[in-house]
């Protein structure tokens, strides 16, 4: 079974600072990888997904970017955080055709 590692669990960053969130996956090779954001009490917004190394699809234009330097590593970055970037960031793996998504425990980001 897949295990999704995400860190840190919580993060408080000032406006304008950079961001790097890392996600690694165990138990599978060549997974589809996803970054979702969830605002407080809201639904899941798909930010990026990747079907392979170096392949990134963006769903929402914004000041965030994603990279996949290795098969089981997915990174979410920002050069300058905005207040509106606050939220619960979830990495997920799987989802190929009919397979379910497995989520990491998430990172709760507060931009102050």
């Amino acid at each position: 079974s897949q295990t999704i590692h995400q860190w840190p669990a919580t993060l408080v960053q000032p406006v304008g600072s950079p961001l790097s969130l890392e996600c690694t996956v165990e138990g599978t090779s060549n997974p589809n990888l996803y970054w979702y954001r969830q605002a407080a009490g809201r639904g899941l917004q798909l930010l990026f997904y990747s079907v392979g190394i170096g392949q990134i699809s963006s769903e929402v234009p914004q000041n965030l970017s994603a990279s996949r330097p290795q098969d089981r590593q997915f990174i979410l970055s920002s050069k300058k955080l905005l207040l509106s970037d606050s939220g619960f960031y979830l990495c997920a793996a799987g989802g190929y055709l009919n397979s379910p998504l497995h989520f990491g425990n998430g990172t709760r980001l507060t931009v102050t």
Partner: protein
Amino acid sequence: GQQVMQIPQYQHVQEGEDFTTYCNSSTTLSNIQWYKQRPGGHPVFLIQLVKSGEVKKQKRLTFQFGEAKKNSSLHITATQTTDVGTYFCAGRTSGANNLFFGTGTRLTVIP
């Protein structure tokens, strides 16, 4: 773009009452999945429906996929306090890699 809406947004029920959440897509889906997110936690996969008109049961939970494959429902019989959380549907169109989540229904069960 693809949109998946869920109603209601919130539902408060007395323990023992039934609960239903409905999911509607603007486009035809190849499959639909349901997830549960406990407060403070991450979404956990419950089930997947693929066939038109499909019905699946998991103990007190009944899942349905509409004939047109554009809507789905989750029904919980005799809710318990352990059912508390937010229930999301998630749909995928044919050949797509991305999974679009519904807006979610937050269930509160009053003991």
